[in-house]
């Protein structure tokens, strides 16, 4: 494939960007919730159902072989994409939420004993919090939290102080979905490993923004969602180190994950199948390859540079004095192109609906991070999140719409 050269060219790959919303051209700034999909992904889904649809594995007919080969080739590309040692360390799940539930239920139950500690941060998405609450309640382990500072960054000193030999599992969000903050996970992983804990990384927000290298990071587990990485819905990835995955009991059970089944007992299949019970989301897996290819073709550097330019333009605009009604939430500069804010004097839901009236899609609410919102003493925010296909003009339009809203307030 040719390298993709201009943002206009990239936009042309996303037909949805031409949608009209309330009579206005759509400006999609809700990319942290889910990204749009390039046409190559949509075409791959369609092509699968038009030509190759069949259940995979354990079947000898041609359609099944075609589907199986495409399915497994996504796993191969995924291995490269995150630099796993082997493709069998890449397990397909429903999404980040399921990946974390899998690790909490299977690995958590395997290792946690009463008095052990599980360490998270105060900025976790509910998906990286509630599963740990539940496994801790079940095992008697204790949940601890790395505190965050008022600018929305981790208090690293406190983090290093809180990591002690009782900690068995550290599960940390790489990039906060509510704030955009990029966490110092390499340092945390190193400190956790030094006391023998294992580390799970929630890469839901990271994967579309920068290059992942699980071997360089040396994380033990990592969770990714396809739908936030330009891929189809209903699909995620759990990366895990082989020796851990092998030691873990299966999570769900049924077809595909077994080796031998007797009425009274069963033996389990090898990796990655041991963790892939039932018919998987075949079409999504096959199309996800095109999403990985899309990101690879553009290159993470290009993505980072463009997204930063959008973010800088937004920040510059918003910091002008006429915007004194806007209060930014999450001001640490080490972040991706995501900004949460409040419009002082107006509820975030109202701001969201007014922006929508101008065709602008943003997220409003607690962003599945209620404890974090509580920490900031707020109920929710307006969150704008930018992606590779957004443009400087869209930022200007967004700023103008915000200006108009702010002007309305008494």
């Amino acid at each position, binding site marked *: 494939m040719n390298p993709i050269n201009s943002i206009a060219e990239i936009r042309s790959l996303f037909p949805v960007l031409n949608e009209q919303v*309330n*009579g206005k051209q759509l400006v999609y700034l809700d990319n942290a919730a889910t990204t749009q999909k390039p046409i190559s992904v949509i075409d791959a889904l369609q092509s699968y159902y038009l030509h190759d649809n069949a259940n995979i594995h354990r079947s000898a007919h041609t359609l099944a072989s075609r589907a199986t080969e495409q399915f497994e080739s996504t796993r191969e590309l995924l291995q490269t994409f995150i630099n796993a040692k082997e493709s069998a360390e890449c397990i397909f799940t429903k999404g980040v939420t399921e990946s974390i539930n899998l690790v909490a239920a299977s690995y958590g139950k395997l290792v946690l004993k009463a008095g052990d500690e599980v360490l998270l941060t105060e900025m976790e998405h509910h998906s990286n919090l509630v599963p740990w609450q539940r496994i801790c309640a079940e095992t008697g382990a204790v949940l601890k939290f790395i505190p965050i500072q008022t600018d929305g960054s981790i208090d690293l000193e406190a983090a290093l102080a809180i990591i002690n030999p009782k900690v068995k599992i550290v599960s940390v969000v790489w990039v906060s979905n509510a704030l955009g903050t990029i966490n110092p996970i390499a340092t945390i992983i190193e400190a956790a490993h030094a006391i023998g804990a294992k580390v799970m990384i929630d890469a839901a927000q990271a994967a579309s923004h920068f290059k992942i290298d699980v071997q360089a990071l040396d994380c033990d587990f990592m969770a990714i969602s396809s739908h936030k990485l330009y891929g189809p819905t209903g699909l995620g990835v759990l990366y895990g180190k082989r020796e851990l995955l092998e030691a873990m009991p299966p999570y769900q059970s049924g077809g595909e994950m077994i080796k031998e089944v007797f009425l009274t007992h069963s033996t389990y299949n090898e990796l990655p199948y041991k963790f892939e019970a039932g018919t998987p989301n075949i079409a999504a897996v096959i199309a996800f390859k095109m999403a990985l290819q899309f990101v690879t073709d553009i290159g993470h550097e290009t993505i980072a540079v463009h997204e930063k330019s959008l973010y800088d333009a937004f920040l510059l605009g918003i910091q002008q004095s006429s915007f004194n009604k806007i209060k930014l939430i999450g001001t640490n500069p080490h972040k991706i192109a995501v900004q949460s804010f409040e419009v002082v004097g*107006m*509820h975030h839901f*109202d701001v969201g*609906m007014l922006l929508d*009236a101008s065709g602008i899609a943003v997220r409003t609410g607690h962003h599945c991070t209620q404890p974090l919102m509580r920490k900031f003493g707020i109920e929710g925010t307006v969150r704008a999140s930018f992606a590779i296909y957004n443009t400087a003009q869209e930022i200007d339009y967004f700023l103008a719409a915000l200006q*108009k809203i702010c002007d*309305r307030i008494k």
Partner: protein
Amino acid sequence: MKTINDIQDEIIADFSLFEDDMESKLFYLMDIGKKLAPMDPAHQSPEFIIKGCMSKVWVYPIFNEGSLQFEADSNTEITKGLVALLVKIWNNRTPAEILQTDLYFITQIGMGSMIGSQRSNGFAGMIQQMKIYANAFQNHN
């Protein structure tokens, strides 16, 4: 006294000035909300919150001499505008009138499209709850 449909028609006429300008409609709704009579804080309790609405909306019914009055409030301005419209239409009506109403103004003012499922569930929830009150008082008589 104007009929329910007179008021619906007035609302439709008011909104028609904005044509397809959704932003102006919302600003207008917010203004309508601001003019809503204040709710007795004592009535702003959890049992009077409308379910299924992302915003918080309280509706408190008062039955007096055969007809209903509603106090209402919301923590968001647009939703408050919406509930204010319902209050405007249904205040001082009999339960029967309320239960028979065909609320055609909603789609006519172009809110059907704007206020999607979550919100429209909320909107639908307000309507449903107000009708439940009407029904209760009708049977009570």
